[in-house]
């Protein structure tokens, strides 16, 4: 019998069609090769999913995975990640959340759950103490996220359990429906909520009392204490911990990189009305933190009275504030409307980034006359109308009227509308661009938005500004990070491809180990108070007993990053899909960065492909690169 440390060593397999639950042993050799969380997800989806599977069919696979760090004493280890084929992009999907669902899954005895098939009627899974029960969820179908969570916790009689569930938006197969956990934590992107619903899966509840063993408890404890002491001096503690991510609003506005009015510009004169400072002054109840987190970026806020009255709940984040508020130019009763919108999205189970993006797109379409009141059920779409915005959120969640079109996501909505609407549909591969702009913040976003396998993402694999927006090395200098960083607007000839490759792999490590990415950012000039690859290697080795140094860990990250790319290649995605939206090639209209635009997206991409060992013409990893990573079988399958 294998002794496991860090890992639980068990995969839970649930076939909803056959109502079968099986427990299988985790393969030991996967650990050093794929590490965990989305690394395991990539391996399973590559091996077991057929190409061109319909994402909303029973043949799609839904993996809920944790990493070896999840649920341990390591700071920032409250992590759950889901992998599947996305109904929005028809490509690789991964979506991550904090809270305590991931740790509870480990305490229940499992590293990951693989769900296949489709239940006859709505069900939820109750995962606990090494087993899984498939329970009737018919009475929960149609209920909001908060109500579903309350009812399940009452039914299972374990108030300390964690519940991951979908809301009405998922049930309506909205292409950007979220998987919510612990009431307000969102695995928002890529439409995981719709995949849940396509399986008649309403929720997963998890709890247990199994511990997680360390291979070398003394050395592990020492490494944990060193990491925790370091994180007490986290470089961004005052900002992210003190104000929450919404604290970015005023600062990014001052820098001229606050996306505004469907990315027409990056400067919003009324930014302070929706800032972290205003939230703290008027609506904040207290801070919140995920499991094991030393940063505590969560906000718990409310609107106690008035027409946007909202009960206490977690949020709003920076992304929500910008994408829902600033992109629609909310200037009247701004923050109250945004808080209300956040509460609605959390309860309907909607990704706030995609929701805000598609509403801003629709408003611009209406302004340009590309859609009219005939298309919008008589609604006059206009900027700066909070009531309208809240109405649209409801319509999207229920797929009512124009909401049915918008629920398809900005790519499909633009295709259906035609008339040049694609010119201001701001997405990559069908995933809506979030509130970080390559024109104003860093040209590294031009690489990330183009090549990230799930589409345009500001945080997967890493925050792309963690190099030249603020000069940070994150402990990557031993790996060859070009230093000092270039001008953030410089596009080619500055080794940006090399630098971004390392940033991406460091981010992938967080995604495989099961920690929050906020823990990755720090600079040698500022005490390197972050989880560098070196620190991660010490933690991994002492926890799991699998000895790996920082270079081997980064190699594993490169393996998984390339495997995800190959999943997409198998689905037919190549360089042609690594395309930035037209809006990001247009100059910023106002503010400190007026005139900035991405001028040479192809040149930037060429340099990144070269740094990564990918074919410049096709964007496909070369056979040589794949064999170097031990992925010869993948190269064979792709006939490279």
């Amino acid at each position, binding site marked *: 019998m294998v002794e496991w440390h860090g890992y639980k060593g068990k995969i839970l397999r649930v076939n909803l069609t056959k109502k079968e639950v099986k427990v299988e042993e985790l393969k030991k050799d996967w650990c050093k090769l794929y590490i965990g969380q989305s690394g395991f997800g990539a391996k399973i989806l590559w091996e077991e999913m057929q190409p061109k599977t319909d994402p909303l069919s029973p043949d799609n696979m839904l993996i809920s995975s944790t990493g070896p760090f999840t649920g341990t004493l390591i700071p920032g280890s409250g992590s759950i990640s889901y992998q599947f084929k996305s109904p929005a992009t028809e490509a690789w999907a991964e979506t991550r959340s904090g809270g305590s669902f991931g740790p509870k899954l480990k305490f229940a005895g499992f590293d990951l759950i693989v769900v296949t098939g489709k239940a006859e009627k709505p069900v939820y899974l109750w995962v606990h103490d090494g087993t899984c029960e498939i329970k009737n969820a018919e009475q929960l179908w149609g209920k909001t996220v908060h109500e579903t969570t309350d009812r399940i916790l009452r039914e299972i009689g374990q108030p300390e359990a964690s519940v991951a569930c979908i809301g009405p938006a998922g049930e309506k197969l909205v292409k950007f429906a979220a998987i919510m956990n612990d009431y307000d934590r969102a695995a928002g992107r890529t439409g995981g909520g719709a995949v849940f619903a396509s399986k008649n899966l309403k929720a997963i509840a998890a709890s247990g009392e199994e511990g997680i063993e360390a291979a070398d408890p003394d050395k592990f404890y020492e490494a944990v204490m060193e990491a925790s002491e370091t994180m007490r001096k986290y470089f961004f503690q005052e900002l992210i911990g003190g104000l929450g991510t919404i604290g970015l609003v005023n*600062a990014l506005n001052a820098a*001229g990189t606050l996306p505004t009015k469907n990315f027409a510009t990056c400067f919003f004169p009324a930014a302070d009305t929706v800032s972290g400072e205003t939230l703290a002054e008027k609506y904040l109840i207290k801070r919140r933190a995920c499991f094991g987190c030393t940063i505590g*970026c969560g906000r718990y806020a409310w609107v106690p009275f008035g027409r946007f009255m909202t009960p206490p709940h977690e949020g709003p984040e920076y992304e929500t504030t910008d994408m829902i508020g600033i992109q629609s130019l909310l200037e009247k009763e701004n923050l109250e409307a945004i808080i209300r919108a956040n509460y609605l999205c959390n309860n309907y189970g909607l990704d706030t980034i995609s929701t805000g993006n598609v509403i801003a797109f629709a408003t611009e379409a209406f302004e340009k006359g590309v859609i009219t009141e005939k298309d919008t059920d008589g609604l006059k779409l206009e900027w700066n109308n909070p009531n309208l915005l809240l109405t649209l959120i409801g319509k999207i969640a229920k797929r009512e009227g124009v909401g049915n079109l918008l629920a398809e996501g900005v790519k499909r909505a633009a295709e259906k509308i035609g008339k040049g609407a694609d010119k201001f549909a701001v997405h990559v591969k069908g995933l809506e661009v979030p509130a970080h702009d390559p024109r104003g913040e860093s040209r590294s976003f031009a690489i990330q938005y183009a090549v990230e396998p799930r589409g345009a993402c500001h945080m997967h694999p890493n925050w792309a500004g963690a190099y030249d927006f603020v000069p940070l090395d994150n402990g990557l200098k031993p790996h060859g990070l070009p230093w000092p960083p270039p001008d953030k607007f410089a596009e080619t000839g500055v080794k940006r491809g090399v630098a971004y490759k390392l940033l991406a792999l460091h981010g992938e490590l967080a995604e495989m180990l099961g920690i929050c990415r906020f823990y990755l950012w720090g600079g040698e000039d500022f005490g390197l108070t972050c989880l560098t690859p070196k620190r991660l290697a010490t933690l991994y080795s002492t926890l799991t007993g699998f000895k790996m140094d920082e270079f081997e860990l980064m190699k594993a990250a490169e393996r998984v990053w390339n495997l995800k790319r190959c999943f997409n290649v198998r689905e037919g995605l190549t360089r042609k899909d690594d395309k930035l939206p037209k809006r990001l090639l247009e100059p910023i209209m106002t503010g400190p960065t007026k005139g900035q635009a991405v001028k040479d997206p192809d040149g930037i991409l060429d340099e990144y492909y070269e740094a990564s060992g990918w074919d410049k013409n096709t964007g496909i990893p070369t056979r040589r690169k794949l064999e170097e990573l031990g992925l010869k079988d993948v190269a064979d399958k792709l006939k490279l």
Partner: protein
Amino acid sequence: MEMKVILKYAGIVHEITGKLSEEIELGAETSLSDILRRLALQYGLRFKEHVFDYKANKPAPQILILLNGKIIQDYDRKINDGDFVSIMPMVSGG
């Protein structure tokens, strides 16, 4: 010839100055360090300690100074009419 420069503040700089933005008029041949020195004199010791030490000619740790969105390290650089100078804390993603 008079020039106009737009200053943008955030974080502790906002706290110390009490403003998020202001415009100032300057003569030609004004450098960035001239502007920062003027602000330090205007806003007092807290500005010098926490934002820009004009005697050492460098910003406080964790302060970013941007010119039209770009990080600037040459404070003797001359400013042009209509330039934006952002003085703010270093910020992360999120």
